[in-house]
């Protein structure tokens, strides 16, 4: 190795060192620490009873209905919101791609849900569906408290998620649409393909990588859902999600041992899901570099 390349390596590492150090200290180390804590009986209210218990915490978590119910709820909300978002996002993206009038205005207004604080969005929808303050019941001629029952509460939670995150999906898909060469669509039109065929045979296959990335981002994001559920139901009426269970065990009940086991299991679920996605869509992340 020449002196020059060595100097270059040293400079590169020096430049990356602060970022790498931050990522190691604030994420890698806490994850390892969580694994370590999860092997102990460790309740901050009774710190003297701290003891090594091996995998007992995991057995407790996996043997409890709370964990499985939260996993189901999280997957239910994720599938419910992400699938609608994909379709709606595609419609919005096509609209922005095709519309001549008001295209800029559509894009500007779609950034509002994206930028809005999730807590605020969740509050707004909570008040809208509230039987005393809300306008939704009056509009639909209905009575009843949406957030007081499990399945209607899920409707409100999923609606909030869809409203808040469809714009992100739409903007990613729009960026993908603009990368499709107009010549290709034109050629298909000349060859006699109708609008439907052009969409399903040309546009969609070319969009596959973009759709894959958008779905991956949104799915992993939806799996962490916390703010909306916390604001709208606090996990009551059987709507608790994985993040809510983790928060309740760790911060509300201060049970670091059991809570860490929940945290590690959530981490595992997310990693498995990400791996499935990457294989399913053939997204090659290690080979991908910013171009």
């Amino acid at each position: 190795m020449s002196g020059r390349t060595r100097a270059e390596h040293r400079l590169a590492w020096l430049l990356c060192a602060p970022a790498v150090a931050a990522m190691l200290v604030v994420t890698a180390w806490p994850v390892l620490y969580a694994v370590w804590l999860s092997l102990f009986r460790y309740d901050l209210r009774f710190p003297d009873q701290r003891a090594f218990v091996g995998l007992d915490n995991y057995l407790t978590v996996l043997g409890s209905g709370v964990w499985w119910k939260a996993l189901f709820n999280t997957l239910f909300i994720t599938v419910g919101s992400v699938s609608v978002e994909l379709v709606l996002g595609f419609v919005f993206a096509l609209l922005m791609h095709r519309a001549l009038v008001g295209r800029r205005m559509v894009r500007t207004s779609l950034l509002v849900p994206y930028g809005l604080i999730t807590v605020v969005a969740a509050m707004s929808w909570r008040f809208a569906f509230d039987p005393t303050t809300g306008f939704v019941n009056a509009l639909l001629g209905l009575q009843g408290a949406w957030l007081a029952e499990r399945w209607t509460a899920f409707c409100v939670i999923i609606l909030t998620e869809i409203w808040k995150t469809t714009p992100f999906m739409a903007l990613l898909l729009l960026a993908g649409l603009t990368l499709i060469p107009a010549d290709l669509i034109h050629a298909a039109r000349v060859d006699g393909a109708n609008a439907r065929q052009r969409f399903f045979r040309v546009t969609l296959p070319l969009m596959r990588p973009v759709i894959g990335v958008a779905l991956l981002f949104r799915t992993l994001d939806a799996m962490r859902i916390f703010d909306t559920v916390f604001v709208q139901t606090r996990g009551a009426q059987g709507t608790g999600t994985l993040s809510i269970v983790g928060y309740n065990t760790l911060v509300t009940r201060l049970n670091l041992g059991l809570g860490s086991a929940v945290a590690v299991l959530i981490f595992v679920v997310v990693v498995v899901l990400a791996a499935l996605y990457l294989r399913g869509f053939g997204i090659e992340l290690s080979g991908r570099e910013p171009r």
Partner: protein
Amino acid sequence: MTDGTGHSRTERLFWGAGSAVVVAYALLPVAWILALSLKPAADLGDNRFFPRAFTLDHYAAVFHDPQFPAALWNSVGIAVLATLAAVLLGMLAAYAIVRLEFPGRRLILAAALAIAMFPPVSIIGPLFNMWRTLGLYDTWAGLILPYMTFTLPLSIWTLAVFFREIPWDLDKAARVDGATPLQAFVRVIVPLAAPGVASAAILVFLFAWNDFLFAISLTSTNAARTAPAAIAFFTGSSRFAQPTGSIAAASVVVTVPVILMVLLFQRRIVAGLTAGAVKG
């Protein structure tokens, strides 16, 4: 009948109507919370979308309450400092990744990507414990550190994508023309890098401004509690009044900066959002 672009009038009407629906979709909850914040307390339960009478009482109430102004100040300070830190560290790393050949380049990008997908709830327990030991619990630094770290991937990826587009040799050309290295950097490279830096900074700011989980897990008092946490735990000015009006007014206040950013920097936001996902 067609215009110059080959679109028929009905087609134009169709897309125009579609656009109007999307704009209404995007703005409905914002308009609703604004309407709610302007209703007099007696009208809060009238089940109507539009207020019948207007009042600024709820705004006066949230700003007289000691809790909300403190939270707003914490939010602004923490989000700005986290943004500066994440963008500075991101710039250093992105420069190295784009401009220098070294082993571990890919490793850093992959690690950054892994963190981007990471569930924050997995580390709040350990962080809670570590921060209490280190005295960072319920401080600005205690929130700035996780915000900075969780936005570093975004910052590094976005900046790397933008930096790759910069014709770095231009500064050599400027120096041949007689500019000093500093002049060449300030006059040539900085203006070229600025849009990418702005994109990264806005996305980081929005993340920090939006966060709720870290904010309620790692703070407990007005010392560091941010606006989203304050809004979620509002108790109202009097113990017997429903805090609906106050929550709505506070929500509108924290939404104003977001709307301003969207209006001023929409192109930068869209560029930043799509940089990593589509080109990467």
